[in-house]
């Protein structure tokens, strides 16, 4: 397994705006989806013969469907405010990773086919045909965007590059140009119920193993129930929470919280995934299919509440779409948010004195928090503005004596993406992932040097995996990434509330 030639960034005191490095990431391309995979998802198996015509037709269809897309393509005034806001540009210097340049790849073709100026004076308005070369650039650079929406925050018109990326991906899928990683994950979710492809027997094996360990460690019998009909709460966690480190420590945290609250809960093998990778494809149909699993599980298990685990884009999907694409949820208890985030759940218990927490249990750590971009910019929490920033911090403070925020320019709504979201968490994109992680790691390094920070907590499965993979490459300790509910797990005093 030859390691790719990786450019390892040097982390300094400040994040400089990089020198322009033309084509720095031009050769870093996602693997294409194989024909069988495309077919299983109902996409053409390979690039269709009349791809140009089909792509333009699809673009027309999307422009009709999403008015915002047309608006975004029309209103950019090239003011440049977004150019140095994307972590993939900041970490690489590749000018095609400037948000406006990323948009322009689609905009040029849009101008040619859908505007009067483009038809009659293409050169004047920068209109270009969709050549094979252009299509290849789409495939490369629309898979170097994590759809994090950081750029839109700084654009005076609020132009959302994420939406443009999603549209481009949807067009590419429709002409047979899918990305292997995302499409494989979506298919596993349809066939097995989760992104990793953990079948029911394995899920039970893992959860029983965790129960055993917990009993051994704590002397208390703490359940991690699977498919237990009649439980109050259906917990929908990202499948990584059953599989990876430090994710599984978060799962253990949820289990302890439910245990101490005395609320019955269950995970479901049918809906064993919180995430919805179909969102990365921009496909409504597949999104609907993935989300519907949660609805079916909730009905079958006769639960009263649905709580989502620590997963960034899952929360975005659940928060913004669960009600619209597979509601109504009138069979759930209306006294609780539908759906509810595990952080809202835990925070509510803390406020009501329902958890016995001893923050000295985390005294060996000085903790900072990585706001995941999806909760930060595409969802809320707690029903009040900024709840998605306050609630996780408030839980951490209840569990840890030493908490430090990173530089205010790089947290809360201005947070950087971890560099692995949006369908980029795959081996062949490693140079892109390193570039994208650099701004966050630089900000982290600063609080490590200045404030003695030892750990960074996150509430997103992808963020945790991405940082765990990238940190050793810059000579930092991967174990410094922790799940937020791992901190809760350490602090909770079992038995104190029995």
């Amino acid at each position, binding site marked *: *397994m030859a390691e790719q030639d990786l450019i390892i960034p040097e982390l300094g005191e400040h994040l400089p705006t990089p020198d322009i490095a033309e084509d720095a990431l031009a050769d870093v391309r996602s*693997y294409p989806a194989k024909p069988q995979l495309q077919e299983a998802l109902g996409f053409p198996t390979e690039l269709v013969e009349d791809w140009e015509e089909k792509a333009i037709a699809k673009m027309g269809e999307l422009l009709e469907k999403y008015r915002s897309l047309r608006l975004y393509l029309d209103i950019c005034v090239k003011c440049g405010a977004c150019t140095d806001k994307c972590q993939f540009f900041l970490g690489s210097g590749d000018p095609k990773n400037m948000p406006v340049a990323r948009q322009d790849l689609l905009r040029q073709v849009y101008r040619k086919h859908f505007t009067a100026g483009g038809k009659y004076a293409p050169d004047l308005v920068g209109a270009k045909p969709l050549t094979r070369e252009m299509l290849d650039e789409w495939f490369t650079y629309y898979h170097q965007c994590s759809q994090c929406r950081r750029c839109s925050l700084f654009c005076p018109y609020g132009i959302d590059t994420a939406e443009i990326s999603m549209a481009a991906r949807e067009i590419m899928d429709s002409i047979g140009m899918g990305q*292997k*990683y995302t499409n*494989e*994950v979506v298919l*596993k979710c349809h066939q097995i119920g*989760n*992104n*990793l*492809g*953990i*079948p029911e*027997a*394995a899920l039970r*094996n*893992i959860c029983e*193993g965790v129960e055993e*360990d917990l009993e051994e460690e704590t002397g208390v019998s703490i359940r991690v129930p699977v498919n237990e009909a009649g439980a109050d709460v259906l917990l929908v966690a*990202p*499948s*990584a929470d*059953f*599989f*990876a*480190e430090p*994710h*599984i420590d978060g799962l253990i945290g949820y289990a302890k919280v439910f245990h101490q609250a005395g609320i019955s809960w269950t995970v479901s093998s049918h809906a064993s995934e919180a*995430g919805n990778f179909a969102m990365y494809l921009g496909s409504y149909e597949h999104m609907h299919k993935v989300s519907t699993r949660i609805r079916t599980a909730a009905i079958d298990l006769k639960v009263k509440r649905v709580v989502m685990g620590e*997963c960034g884009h899952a929360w975005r999907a659940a928060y913004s779409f669960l009600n619209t694409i597979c509601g109504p949820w009138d069979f759930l208890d209306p006294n609780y948010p539908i759906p509810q985030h595990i952080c809202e759940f835990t925070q509510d218990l803390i406020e009501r004195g329902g958890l016995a927490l001893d923050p000295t249990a985390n005294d060996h750590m000085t903790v900072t928090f990585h706001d995941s971009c999806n909760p930060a910019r595409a969802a809320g929490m707690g029903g009040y503005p900024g709840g998605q920033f306050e609630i996780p911090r408030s839980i951490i403070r209840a569990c840890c004596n030493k908490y430090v925020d990173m530089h205010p320019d790089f947290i809360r709504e201005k947070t950087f993406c971890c560099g692995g979201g949006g369908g980029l*968490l*795959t*081996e*062949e994109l490693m140079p892109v992932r390193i570039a994208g992680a650099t701004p966050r790691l630089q900000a982290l390094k600063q609080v490590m040097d200045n404030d003695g920070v030892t750990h960074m907590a996150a509430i997103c*499965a*992808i963020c945790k*995996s991405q940082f765990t993979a990238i940190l050793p490459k810059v000579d930092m300790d991967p174990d410094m990434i922790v799940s937020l509910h791992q901190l809760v797990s350490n602090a909770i005093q079992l038995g104190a509330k029995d």
Partner: protein
Amino acid sequence: MAYDFQGKSIDHDEEGFITDVGDWSPELASFLAEQEGIALGDEHWEVINFLRDYYNEYQIAPAIRVLVKQMKKAFGPEKGNNKYLYELFPYGPAKQACKFAGLPKPTGCI
């Protein structure tokens, strides 16, 4: 993409994982390991055999936590830890040991 192995062509993916679990044999495992500069010894086989047994039962590779726990149970704490597993398989048990064992690499949010 295929390996040329004992006169047969064995398909693999972009990262060298064989695409049909049925193509696997112990000899193929040794062949794959050699390509990455590793001569498989008993210690490697302890891990590979467990991975294969687990996969046969559960249709997925074990979570690292499960693997570590099993190694600890079967061979004691010196072998039931991450550090030991990384010494055996420098690119990580999930990636490298799964590859030699002929299992698909687990992908998703990990």
